């Protein structure tokens, strides 16, 4: 347990000592703010429209601002996650420091969990920063905070799953760019898999749609805590981390 924390702290330090973390953080905050501004602008436009027509549409901050917003964030997460995970093992392999980790009296599982935890904490920091935007919603409006909290939990779970996949891919190469591009490809594929459900109802299409990370986010975006979807994310996290540990073990056989 202690070793996991030692590795995690080291990874967080190296994120924050280089410009990577700040750059990603700034980009994430800017893009999020843009989305926020957009959905809010549309919401205000709808409000004016309803006043001009003299008929009242039902207006709801949770449904019309928060829900589309977190859905967008879940998509931009796909772009940010490869940039967080690509260096985690590829860099250690390139610089030879992996030899230090593997010949130290710590378990491979502890190394992997430590790194995954660090990447998750970094992503959680991104999400935390975006919470600033909601101050305005709560100041001038009256949204329900619980669905928002559930949505953020969903974002974190989804990120955890994709980060686990990204870390696994990072163990497969010593080239960060290769790891990043491959992770991005896999993330993108996991996102668009659900499209087949749009025109096909056969079992295979349903399976593909089930595998898509985005399908499982919908309930969280609505503010519903769905155990079925939480189990999906937990499964992907465990599977990804399990594969990572096996891959780290196999570094010895392959190298």
């Amino acid at each position, binding site marked *: 347990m202690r070793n996991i924390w030692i590795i995690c702290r080291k990874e967080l330090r190296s994120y924050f000592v280089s410009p990577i973390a700040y750059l990603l953080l700034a980009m994430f905050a800017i893009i999020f703010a843009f989305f926020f501004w957009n959905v809010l602008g549309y919401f205000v436009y709808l409000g004016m429209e309803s006043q001009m027509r003299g008929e009242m549409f039902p207006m709801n901050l949770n449904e019309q601002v928060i829900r589309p917003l977190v859905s967008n964030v879940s998509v931009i997460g796909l772009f940010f996650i490869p940039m967080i995970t690509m260096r985690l093992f590829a860099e250690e392999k390139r*610089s030879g420091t992996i030899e230090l980790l593997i010949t130290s009296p710590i378990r491979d599982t502890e190394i992997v969990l430590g790194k995954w935890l660090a990447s998750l904490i970094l992503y959680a920091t991104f999400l935390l920063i975006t919470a600033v935007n909601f101050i305005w919603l709560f100041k001038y409006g009256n949204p329900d905070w619980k669905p928002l909290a559930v949505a953020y939990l969903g974002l974190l779970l989804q990120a955890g799953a994709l980060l686990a996949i990204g870390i696994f891919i990072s163990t497969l190469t010593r080239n960060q760019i290769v790891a990043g591009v491959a992770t991005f490809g896999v993330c993108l594929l996991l996102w668009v898999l659900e499209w087949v459900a749009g025109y096909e109802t056969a079992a295979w299409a349903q399976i593909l749609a089930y595998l898509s990370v985005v399908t499982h986010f919908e309930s969280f975006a609505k503010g519903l805590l769905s155990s079925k979807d939480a189990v999906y994310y937990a499964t992907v996290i465990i599977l990804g981390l399990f594969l990572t540990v096996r891959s780290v073990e196999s570094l010895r056989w392959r190298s």
Partner: protein
Amino acid sequence: MISVRDLTKKYARNAAVDHISFEVGKGQIVGFLGPNGAGKTTTMRVLTCFLPPTSGGASVAGFDVLEQPLEVKRRIGYLPETPPLYLEMRTSEYLAFVGRIKGLRGAELDKRINFVLDRCAVADVKSKVLGKLSKGYRQRVGLAQAIIHNPDVLILDEPTAGLDPKQINETRDLIKSLAGDHTIILSTHILPEVEQTCQQVIIINKGKLVATDSVNNLQNRARGAGSVLIEIASGNGTLDAGGAKSRLELVAGVTRVLLKDSGEYGLRFEVEGHNDRAIRGDLVRAIVESGWDLLELRSAAVSLEEVFLQLTGASGEDTKPSEAPNIEPAAAGAQA
């Protein structure tokens, strides 16, 4: 302290290490010698539990590398060929991280950090970023991380590779000074390094054990057992190989005369006696009295370098055959 039994490691179909066995006693400095690609790094990686052996086994301080890797890792300090440094970290921070993953905590960790900073002469760069350090400093920081948890065994893979001569000397002195507390295996392809720092030598080539012996024994074997090389020219007398050989054999104390080759200016002989110093005077007198010119007379002793080249068969062409001593490679597994 270290015991390697019949160790084999194969990559695909090639055996990088082929049935190697050796033992290293407590407190010794052992030089692990071989040309590049001989299997030195592979053997060391097995000892550090980085690679599992294909067959055979190894144990460190009584713990098997396959059965109890965590126990082995606790007792080993390892410096790979390129020091495993996180270049964005500061020296003291890096040592603290390594200390923690090696299991040190709190006050003890601080104590050990200060100790190794001092011991490896890197205290003056303790708050510098590792990426900005010179190669010599990086190597010493690498050594510092290897000894931070005061391991019983130190495994150093080419610790002086790529350093300048001054840094090489500093590093060697440092390694020698560590010998009292630790058992050290150091790999190298540089012979003087072994002569200067090690007590025992393990020579491997192409994955096979060629010789294990103490440095002294190996040097003695290399000295060519009291042989002298002479070159003589005809001068005033007549010189033919057979006549010269039989004349030289008559000199007191000479046990054997070998015609090495007939050069451009004269003939070269290797003359063996029980004591090469004692026979030299008589040899010279005999040559001069026969009316020949003595062009050269020198000891047939060779450096460890030549023994090594011969044992590993690395480059027979580079050493003149006339100078190569007749040394039988030690039987594999021979113990010092």
